[in-house]
């Protein structure tokens, strides 16, 4: 378990010292982390929740690392996306590519620089994510969240250029102040309860105004970082201006970190405080995100901004977990549904951003109006974009469908009609903005087709592979649901959502 943190941390440090070996080190990390996650999966399946006491000290004094179904899912998703992005990045940063803005060829050493910087920060980001998912107390969660934020901001700035830098700066400001809010909340909780350990907090069953203030502060910080509507304003510029592999990492993984903490906080530490007002409130914000994000996506003129707004919308679905999981009946369905959506979205969105990166590279711009006939020059990327779109829309058999199906069933079982409507409308809006891009793939161009660009193969195959994964993920949903039951919070277990045939 500790290996999951130590391996990327060590290689990150090494990559700082010997930047030329960044790629090789990332490869080593991928192998080690992949093996560790697989091992953990076996352990979890056979023995249930695993706890590792760092240094043998144990909870209130030392640091506990803990893995349950949820954490393992997040680790798996991180490993999968991390490996895919690393593959893509080997060529993306190596070949001299236009990044973000429509700039002509740049000097060779600048690209090399970028290559040198990317790998250590990427590995560092991976460390932060793994540590975050393994943490079992709210202070450690804070530390990892902060690390994650810094790594993410630096990666955005990597693109260079005024737009990327200003987006990065904005991201930094937002990220720092959100972390401060969260830290303040942690302080208050510690003052009130005398502990920051998740299980001990749950055992105390405290309540009172101070605790509510603390929870409010923490939640405010977290939803800002998770870019939940209406705190999403920083996300589109940051995600759209970053280099393609970075955009993929940010949208697929980084924003899920704070969401994960939010789940731990509400469902594990303070489940008694999850009143209907709170959960419905989260649901309303989520619904707002779905509608607003989708409508904004429909109005964007640039491809990467469209994809970024789609992230805002898709994050909204995750928050429907709260109203649907806190009621009687079908809680388990909502729990696994939303988390499946999370995994499917990670694959699909990473595929989409990588495909958009290819399009940007070949056409030299990403204005949607000017994309006519791009399927001719980039058939595989167009395919990847379309398949990823299937999952975002929620068409079967994609992972997106499996997730939505479960949420839909939970909502229907509980008679919460309004969420049913939101789920269906959200799907149609997603179809509209995906189709808006794909229409250009089929536009007929007079004369000869644009020359098929010699893009490195791995850059075409990676997004396609991820998109295929997202589409086929539905078939793994039964297994995923079983995995998520391991150590799931009481509310999600209450009504054993799994219907037996």
């Amino acid at each position, binding site marked *: 378990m500790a290996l999951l943190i130590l391996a990327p941390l060590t290689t990150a440090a090494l990559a700082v010292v010997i930047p030329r070996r960044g790629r090789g080190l990332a490869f080593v990390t991928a192998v080690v982390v992949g093996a560790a996650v697989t091992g953990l999966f076996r352990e979890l399946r056979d023995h249930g929740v695993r706890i590792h006491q760092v240094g043998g000290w144990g909870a209130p004094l030392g640091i506990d690392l803990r893995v349950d179904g949820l954490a393992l899912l997040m680790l798996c998703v991180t490993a999968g996306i991390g490996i895919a992005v690393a593959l893509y990045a080997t060529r993306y940063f190596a070949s001299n590519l236009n990044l973000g803005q429509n700039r002509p060829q740049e000097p060779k050493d600048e690209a090399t620089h970028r290559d040198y910087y990317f790998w250590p920060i990427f590995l560092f980001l991976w460390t932060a994510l793994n540590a975050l998912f393994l943490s079992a107390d709210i202070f450690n969660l804070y530390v990892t969240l902060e690390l994650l934020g810094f790594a993410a901001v630096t990666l955005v700035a990597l693109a260079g250029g005024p737009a990327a830098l200003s987006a990065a700066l904005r991201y930094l400001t937002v990220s720092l102040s959100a972390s401060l809010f969260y830290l303040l909340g942690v302080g208050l909780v510690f003052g009130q309860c005398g502990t920051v350990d998740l299980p001990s907090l749950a055992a105390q069953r405290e309540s009172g105004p101070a605790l509510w203030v603390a929870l409010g502060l923490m939640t405010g910080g977290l939803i800002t970082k998770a870019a939940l509507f209406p705190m999403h304003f920083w996300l589109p510029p940051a995600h759209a201006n970053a280099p393609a592999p970075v955009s993929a990492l940010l949208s697929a993984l980084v924003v899920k970190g704070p969401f994960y903490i939010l789940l731990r906080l509400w469902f594990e530490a303070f489940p008694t405080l999850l009143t209907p007002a709170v959960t419905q409130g989260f649901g309303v914000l989520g619904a707002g995100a779905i509608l607003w994000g989708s409508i904004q996506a429909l109005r964007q003129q640039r491809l990467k901004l469209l994809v970024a707004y789609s992230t805002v919308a898709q994050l909204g679905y995750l928050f429907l977990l709260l109203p649907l999981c806190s009621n009687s009946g079908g809680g388990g*369905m909502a729990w*696994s549904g939303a988390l499946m959506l999370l995994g499917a979205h990670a694959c699909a969105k990473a595929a989409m951003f990588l495909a958009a990166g290819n399009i940007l590279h070949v056409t030299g711009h990403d204005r949607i109006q000017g994309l006519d*006939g791009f*399927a001719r020059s980039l*058939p595989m990327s167009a*395919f990847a974009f379309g398949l990823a779109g*299937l999952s975002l*829309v929620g*068409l*079967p*058999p994609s992972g997106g469908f*499996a997730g939505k*199906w*479960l949420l*839909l*069933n939970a909502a*229907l*079982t509980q008679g919460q009609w309004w969420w*049913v409507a939101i789920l*269906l409308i959200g*799907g*149609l809006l997603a*179809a509209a903005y995906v*189709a808006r891009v794909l*229409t250009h793939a*089929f*536009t*007929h*161009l007079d004369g000869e*087709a644009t020359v098929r660009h010699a893009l490195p193969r791995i850059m075409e195959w990676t997004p396609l592979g991820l998109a295929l994964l997202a589409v086929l993920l*539905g*078939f793994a*949903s*039964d*297994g995923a*649901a*079983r995995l998520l039951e391991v150590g799931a919070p009481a509310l999600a277990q209450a009504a054993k*959502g*799994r*219907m*037996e*045939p």
Partner: protein
Amino acid sequence: MSVHGLVLLGILFSSFVTGVAIFFLKEENHRTRTWLNLLGAGLKLILVAALLWGTYRGQTYSLTLEFLPGIDFALGADSNSVLFVTLSTVLWFWTTLYAVGYLEHSPNRSRFFGFFSLCVTATTGIALSANLVTFLTFFELLTVSTYPLVVHRGTKDALGGGRIYLGYTLAGGALLLLAVAWLHSLAGPVAFKARGVIQSLAAGHRVELQVIFVLFMLGLGVKAAILPLHGWLPKAMVAPAPVSALLHAVAVVKAGAFGIVRVVYDVYGVETASELNVLQPLALAAGATIVYGSIRALFQDELKKRLAYSTVSQVSYIVLGVAILSPVASIGGLVHLVHQGLMKITLFFGAGNYAEALGIHKVSEMNGVGRRMPLTTSAFTIGALGMMGTPFLAGAVSKHYLKLGAEESGDTWAVWILTVSGLLNAAYFIPILWRAWFKPPSDPHPAPGSAKRTEPPWALVVPPVVTALMVIWAGLFAEQPFSPLAWVKLVAQREFGH
């Protein structure tokens, strides 16, 4: 997984693998692509023949995979599936041949045939689905794989038509999803079963089941082009002729109609559905669509549009047959599923040939075309006569059973609708035939060419001739074993238990 399950998988994969392989072919690999296409289509034919024979002898086929929590991805072959899968496989074979000839020199053929194969995979998947979620999966796959075919030309018109198509069908898909999920939350996983599976719920959840039924009909009705939901069909006419043929006779419209058959017979069950009072409104909607489509068809000068409205009208025959509570009427409806497919595909092949060989797109340009393209026009004529309900052709058989059934159940209004529609069919087809055979060619035709015979290449002529012959066979030998009618009677026996 037994050998019998593998047959089902083979039927799906024979076109799926073909499609995927074709995507990776270079545009110039004409020969390889054609062979792959025909190989896939041929293999599928053989497998379906095996399935047909096996089912006839009482062998059951089924295959399940783990899918959603608590729900399997299930394939199976009951007599309904076999009917539809045979139809789509046979017609796919001829359409593939036709498409190879039709698109000889146009760009993006690999993309076209790739999606073409996926489209057929989805259709056979719909036929072989054994439960609602599997059905939904293939239903949506069909929507998605057909879109690239509709917009294939990439012109402004095509893209516009595609957008409308996608809007309608995805909205329909969302309603269908809602219906499936809602029913699931009431009844658990719903597997298709002759005479329905929800009888036990009918008492306790009357209103809910009625609403769900309406949602089902709205969701499926978009594809089946029932009256207020038919708007996409004429617009989708911008697609190349083989696609139109496939859309109207085999894939999309048929999938909608087949879905309605499934929901009424194998989910609700006819008895439960009529007990819930939901069949009468469906029958009325179908009746209205029949008349409306025929009237609109009268006023279309564009040949393909006229055929499109004719489809709107004809597909509702199937729905009408299903919705009228009588075994005889359902025989008529189900057999029309096959018969309409045979006739309509012939007509669309013909329309495509006129456009391809002479550049004729409008009815008013068709003067004397019979003399120049006698084989095509003969096939077209047989299709048109069949549609009108001329004796000894396929259409007459379905109409005969529909009318008998309507009388049996006391729905005399339906008999009138069928009669009126028959007259209207004649009114919009006879002028075409008259122009084609008896008027002198009003040269110059839009396209250059001598006034002599100008049949297009054999790949375009053979398919309509073959399907026209099938129209005659299905009509003349309707009462023989191994005709569509004989099989449909078998189905009806299971559904009504007489």
